[in-house]
């Protein structure tokens, strides 16, 4: 793949950071369900918290290919950190794309420096794959909106300071979904219980409760009723990021399996000399590389500015790469045998972390629905 010298330099630095700073703390963060805040500050020092902030607001304004490279390399180190950063990036994308000049001036320069941390609140307990069924309402009251409802599966739920919120302006009109910005310290906003998850345990996932929370009308980001289409356009970029994270996690599992298989001896030989193991490794490598090619294809389509082609390519990248990540992590555990089932080896965590990739930012089933729609309709 052809990358510019700037893209290569960014990839090399982020990979070094992932290996030197993320890998060593990944097991401990997972065990303690603790997000590494000092690592977040390091990300900010490297300008990684300003990836989707325009340069005029102090950001890096990464092109789609660079954005994918960074997500791949961070996930190579620790998926929880890559996820937290990509959600922060969704929030700054929304503000940059839909916010007024005043709102952008107020939030973007500081968010580019890492704090306030952003969150993205679309899903609800009863509205996941079909966000149009959401019940959170933002009712206009003079110069304010009054928000009531519950949001679910919020990455950076507790540690965030500002939330991009999707809510209906008319309880009975499914077409009235609108995007808002809600500061977390607004009265009536509270953080619900932290989820106890299979994987991605260092990532802070909570619900958010809105109970008569009043926000100024200027924090309405999109026009009324334009919230969902805005969410979908932002999520297309998000899906490329998840595809890239899947590739990074899978590469990490493959590298671990390659290393272990050449050290582990059975039947008087390294198990990497045994054909059944060699074939597994070959399959894993092919899946990782195929996912990578789909992901960078989608990123290049986004860079060339073709939204239709990008949406389909992004769904294909996310579908294939995330399903492959599970398969590759599964085989990596298998190659490690009993050791792979213990926390003494990183593949155990990679196996648990991988599953979320086929679920968040659109399940595999939803990706197929999107791909089929582009094929048939």
């Amino acid at each position, binding site marked *: 793949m052809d990358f510019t*010298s*700037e893209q290569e*330099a*960014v990839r090399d*630095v982020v990979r070094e*950071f992932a290996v030197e700073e993320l890998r060593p703390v990944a097991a401990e963060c997972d065990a303690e369900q603790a997000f590494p805040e000092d690592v977040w500050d*390091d990300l900010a020092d*490297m*300008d990684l918290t*300003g990836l989707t902030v325009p340069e005029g607001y102090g950001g890096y304004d990464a092109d789609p290919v660079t954005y994918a490279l960074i997500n791949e390399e961070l996930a190579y180190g620790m998926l929880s950190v890559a996820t937290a950063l990509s959600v922060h990036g969704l929030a700054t994308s929304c503000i940059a794309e839909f916010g007024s000049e005043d709102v952008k001036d107020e939030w973007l320069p500081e968010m580019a420096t890492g704090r306030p941390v952003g969150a993205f609140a679309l899903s609800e307990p009863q509205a996941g794959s079909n966000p149009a069924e959401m019940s959170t309402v933002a009712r206009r009251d003079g110069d304010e909106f009054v928000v009531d409802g519950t949001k679910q599966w919020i990455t950076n739920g507790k540690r965030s300071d500002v939330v991009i919120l999707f809510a209906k302006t008319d309880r009975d009109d499914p077409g009235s979904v609108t995007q808002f910005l809600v500061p977390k310290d607004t009265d009536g906003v509270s953080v619900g219980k932290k989820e106890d998850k299979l994987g991605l345990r260092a990532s802070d996932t909570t619900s958010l409760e809105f109970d008569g929370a009043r926000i100024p009308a200027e924090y309405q980001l999109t026009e009324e009723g334009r919230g969902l289409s805005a969410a979908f356009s932002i999520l297309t970029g998000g899906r490329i990021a998840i595809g890239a994270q899947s590739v990074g996690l899978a590469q990490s599992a493959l590298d671990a399996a390659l290393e272990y298989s050449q050290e582990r001896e059975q039947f008087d030989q390294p198990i990497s000399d045994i054909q059944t193991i060699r074939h597994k490794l070959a399959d894993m490598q092919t899946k990782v590389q195929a996912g990578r090619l789909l992901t960078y294809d989608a990123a290049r389509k986004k860079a060339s500015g073709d939204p239709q082609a990008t949406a389909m390519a992004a769904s294909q990248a996310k579908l294939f790469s995330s399903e492959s990540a599970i398969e590759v992590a599964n085989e990596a555990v298998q190659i490690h045998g009993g050791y792979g089932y213990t926390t003494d080896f990183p593949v155990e965590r990679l196996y648990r972390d991988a599953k979320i990739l086929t679920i968040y930012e659109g399940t595999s089933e939803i990706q197929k629905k999107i791909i089929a729609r582009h094929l048939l309709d």
Partner: protein
Amino acid sequence: MKVLVTVKEVAAVEDEFEIDGTAIDEAYLEYDLNEWDDYAIEEGVQISESEDDVEVVSVTIGPERSEETIRMALAKGADRAVRVWDDSLEDAEMLDVEAKTNLLAAVVEEEEPDLVLSGVQADDDGFGATGVSLADEVGFEWAAVVNDLELDVEGGVASVRRELEGGVEELTDVDLPAVLTIQTGINEPRYASLRGIRQAQRKEIKPMTLDDLGLSADVAESDLEIVDMYEPETESDATLFEGSPDETAGQLAEVLRDGGVGQ
């Protein structure tokens, strides 16, 4: 004030490799910034951040490929760079300390820095002599294996702590202009920031040939000749302790006692 930081792109050898004549086969080499030079860059950039009007110039001797490495120095905060290369250097089997000294001395004459920072040694050929040899050639003061630096710009003095053999450290004041060879651990080299990387794409890397430096091709001639390259025989003599921590600690103590380490 001007700080010149010498950097080198060093070859790292893969775990498995083959020797081709008197060199390691190119196929088994990867190139990276010399570890010691990374600390020298950081020291130079920290000086520019804490003092007014400091220009940090990075210099390397190397082919076009090495621009990737020197650009990382620019991304970390060096202001501009000089890359010395020439067809006659390409043809030389090796560049010894004398050759590098003469090349860098010509750059020092051109740039007239107040301070030259150089890594203690290069990770690949490991002569560990270029910095001090350069100081001698250009008539600068020098201090080697510096692991702490306090700079008095007004007074033109660098107060350095030097790491000597056997855990002894020495404090020395060195008058500028000076060459300091920088030891790892003197600071914590930063990761380049993304905006630093972007800015580095636009910073100048000035190519300089022997002609530009007023040198002739015989600068690369060397009295040294590599006569052989081989892997030394290695002996592995590992003892594996088995049992509970109590038992293995006892076994370890016995080995140490027998070896004369403990009483």
